[in-house]
């Protein structure tokens, strides 16, 4: 019997990947330009803070995502000797994913964001992602179920791990309570939110950018080299150790932060351990090429693969190094990390994609590659581009890291001005732009080459001769669908999802219950013996089910063991806090901060180093971000840390700085935000925000919620009138000609938030006293800080216990 593969879907995903790859890299190049030349922040919705998430989401989910789907669908059909289970599901998968990308491209520039890196998309899009991912999973596992090849090749395991892990990571990290269709608050706050986010963030690298590409490596590299993988046994061990260890490494993004020490140490140890499986995989890939080295000279496909795997080796050597606490102390928040991710992103992901496309497209169109020499040229300018990019960011990162910590003879900061440390690296920013542009140019050449190849051929679908057709029994299929395992899995999933809609205490119970039910149903999948009847296991055959289960256990354990402890401790921490929730206006200002993506340039986490406390103030504590949903610790300091900026400057300074940063700090590359003075906030929606916060356990009283609109307005009026009298600017209540500032503008709310950072206000103080406080010079802030815990404790004691426990 002859079967025909669905290669049309592969062609679609390839061209989607190429197109979005170019768009995503172009946005990256614009963002790079903005850092070197801030006037390139041309429009309010195209400032660096909004473009950078667009860049990361586009290259990760649109470029690599579509590439991985293409590679997975092509190789899975061939490795399992069957057509994809459902053409309809494949089509839904393709079009659904592209719609999600379009939704991202619209909402991110509009500032609709959850403010968590690589997970910025708001809740309706998050739900769509979950749905499409399930469609992908069903299509994939269904294909496994109807396969005609008993053995599951190692590439398939990597795909299984990808599907399971991403589902879990995405759902848990995206848990949020909606305020409106475009706004939600994370169910996690502060430290827990940081831990969950970086458990997700790191494993997005692991299970979105690494495991699918490793599966692709194990299929396409032997194909292109025309020889089997060097050691199949090594590949098995590579798989298991990678999947088990990776899931733990997340906290290496949070070294020296307010995260508990034990979690930091754990993250560091597992990250260092990760070096072994990563290099096992790299060596396995490179050694597969032994004896084929001569082909490397002429064949662009092998060139890209060999270089891609080498860059993987480089990035996975650097990663564990950066996870060592003392190295992290220097490198964190600097461009060194940017160098690291682009070594992996451009070198590993980009080159593996290029190699795969150059190999696939001629085959999918029954022709030869249009131009081999152009592909080779692409390889060389791509490599040069990466070297320039990574080299300049290394220099930039280490330079700035060393300047931040440099001491003068008296023991003070040698470079007290932050802008000085920025000016030192601007030449590197230009060099990076050159490197990135070269790489992008190579990609455009590839696009032309692939299109020309497709044009000269015509679409052909692969076919294969299989001995007999396996008859499909409809009845057993139905039985399979209603088996207890399936129901239990659905129940578990439901429990996990519903945890997003209740208070934290119930959420913990629901989450652990859901995890338990899921684990139990997975166990059922594995233990029930079924040699005689046709059931899931008979269909899925020996290996598929146990592999899936073990993989799931591997990824669940790491997550539960790391995250659960802080989640369990959260309600107690809220009860014991000396902190006070944000005032309505501060909360609105914080949402502006999140929406503008200030976290892409500013951290809010002062680490326990002398040079850091000298520059930014006392070390940050977990208590300070206890009401922060999402947390805004940041991961990169293009600008200074803002954790204690409150009170360092007066409102007038902030007003002028936000309108034109370079007028206040010559040489700054911060975007100008004059539009924030005109854009207004609808304070009638503020009570909804407070209500959601309260449902999440933030101790707002019903009275506070009821009066929050007037409260916010009154506070905004005070700040705006203060600016009016100091600066003689025209302040308006309603839009009018010649207005400089709207009272209910985003800028006023933002200033109110910035002035709050690092300070715990005394809620009972008279408004006049509060006004004085805001304009306080630095010296008074310290006194204020020292007094804060006592005041805060009183405030916390005032709150009804029952409310806090919710």
């Amino acid at each position, binding site marked *: 019997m002859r079967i025909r593969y669905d290669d049309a879907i592969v062609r679609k995903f390839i061209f989607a990947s190429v197109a979005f790859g170019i768009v995503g890299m172009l946005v990256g190049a614009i963002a790079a330009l903005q850092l070197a030349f801030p006037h390139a922040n041309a429009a309010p919705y195209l400032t660096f803070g909004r473009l950078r998430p667009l860049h990361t989401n586009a290259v990760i989910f649109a470029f690599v995502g579509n590439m991985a789907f293409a590679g997975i669908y092509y190789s899975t059909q061939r490795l399992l000797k069957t057509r994809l289970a459902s053409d309809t599901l494949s089509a839904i998968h393709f079009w659904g994913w592209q719609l999600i990308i379009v939704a991202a491209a619209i909402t991110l520039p509009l500032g609709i964001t959850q403010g968590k890196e690589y997970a910025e998309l708001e809740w309706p899009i998050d739900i769509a992602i979950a749905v499409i991912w399930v469609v992908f999973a069903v299509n994939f596992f269904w294909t496994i179920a109807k396969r005609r090849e008993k053995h599951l090749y*190692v590439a398939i395991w990597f795909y299984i791990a990808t599907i399971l892990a991403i589902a879990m990571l995405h759902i848990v990290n995206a848990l949020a309570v909606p305020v409106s269709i475009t706004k939600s608050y994370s169910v996690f706050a502060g430290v827990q939110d940081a831990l969950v986010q970086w458990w997700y963030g790191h494993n997005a690298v692991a299970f979105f950018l690494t495991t699918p590409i490793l599966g692709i490596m194990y*299929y396409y590299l*032997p194909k292109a080299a025309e020889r089997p*993988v060097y050691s*199949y046994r090594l590949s098995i061990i590579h798989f298991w150790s990678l999947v088990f260890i990776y899931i733990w490494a997340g906290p290496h993004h949070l070294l020296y932060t307010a995260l508990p020490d034990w979690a930091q140490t754990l993250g560091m140890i597992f990250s260092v351990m990760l070096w072994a499986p990563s290099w096992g995989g790299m060596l396995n890939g490179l050694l597969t090429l032994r004896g084929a080295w001569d082909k490397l000279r002429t064949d662009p496909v092998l060139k890209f693969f060999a270089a891609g795997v080498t860059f993987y080796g480089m990035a996975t050597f650097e990663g564990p190094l950066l996870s060592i606490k003392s190295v992290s102390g220097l490198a964190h928040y600097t461009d060194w990390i940017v160098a690291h991710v682009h070594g992996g992103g451009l070198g590993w992901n980009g080159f593996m994609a290029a190699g795969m496309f150059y190999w696939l497209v001629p085959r999918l169109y*029954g022709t030869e590659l249009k131009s081999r020499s152009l592909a080779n040229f692409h390889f060389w300018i791509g490599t040069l581009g990466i070297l320039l990019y990574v080299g300049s960011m290394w220099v930039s990162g280490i330079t700035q890291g060393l300047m931040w910590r440099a001491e003068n003879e008296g023991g003070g900061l040698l470079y007290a001005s932050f802008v000085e440390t920025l000016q030192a690296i601007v030449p590197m920013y230009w060099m990076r732009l050159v490197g990135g542009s070269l790489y992008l140019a190579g990609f455009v050449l590839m696009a032309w080459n692939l299109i020309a190849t497709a044009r000269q051929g015509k679409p052909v679908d*692969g076919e294969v001769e299989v001995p007999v057709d396996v008859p499909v029994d409809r009845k057993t299929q139905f039985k399979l669908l209603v088996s207890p395992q399936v129901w239990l899995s659905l129940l578990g999933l439901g429990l996990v999802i519903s945890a997003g809609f209740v208070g934290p205490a119930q959420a913990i119970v629901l989450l652990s219950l859901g995890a338990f039910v899921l684990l139990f149903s997975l166990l059922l999948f594995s233990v029930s013996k079924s040699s005689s009847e046709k059931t899931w296991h008979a269909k899925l055959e020996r290996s598929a089910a146990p592999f899936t289960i073990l993989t799931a*256990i591997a990824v669940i354990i790491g997550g539960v063991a790391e995250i659960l402890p802080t989640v369990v401790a959260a309600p107690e921490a809220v009860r014991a806090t000396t902190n006070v929730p944000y005032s309505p206006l501060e909360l609105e200002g914080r949402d502006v901060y999140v929406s503008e993506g200030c976290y892409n340039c500013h951290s809010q986490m002062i680490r326990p180093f002398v040079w850091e406390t000298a520059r930014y103030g006392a070390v940050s504590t977990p208590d300070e971000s206890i009401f922060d949903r999402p947390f805004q610790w940041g991961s990169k300091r293009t600008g200074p840390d803002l954790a204690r900026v409150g009170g360092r400057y007066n409102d007038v300074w902030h007003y002028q700085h936000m309108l034109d940063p370079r007028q206040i700090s010559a040489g700054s590359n911060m975007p100008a935000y004059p539009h924030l003075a005109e854009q207004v906030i609808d304070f009638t929606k503020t009570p909804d925000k407070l209500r959601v916060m309260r449902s999440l356990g933030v101790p707002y009283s019903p009275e506070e919620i009821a009066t929050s609109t007037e409260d916010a307005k009154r506070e905004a009026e005070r700040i705006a009138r203060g600016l009016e009298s100091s600066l003689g600017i025209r302040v308006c209540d309603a839009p009018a000609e010649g207005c400089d500032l709207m009272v209910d503008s985003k800028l006023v709310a933002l200033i109110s938030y910035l002035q709050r950072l690092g300070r715990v206000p005394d809620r009972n103080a008279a408004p006049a006293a509060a006004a004085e406080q805001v304009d306080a010079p630095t010296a008074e802030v310290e006194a204020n800080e020292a007094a804060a815990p006592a005041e805060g404790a009183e405030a916390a004691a005032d709150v009804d216990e029952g409310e806090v426990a919710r």
Partner: protein
Amino acid sequence: MMSRMAESFFAVSPMLAFPLVAMVIFGAVFLAISMRTMRTPNEVIERRRALPLEEDHHG
């Protein structure tokens, strides 16, 4: 001696039991997989290893 070590270890946080248990599970699974892999007969390994190289026909 051992109990004193355990005491000071858990003094940091009782939560340290979690990663410990997980480490044990990891070790056990890793050992089991490695042994199973090493003991898998060569034919099976070779058969799987050759899977990507089986040709399909285009068109």
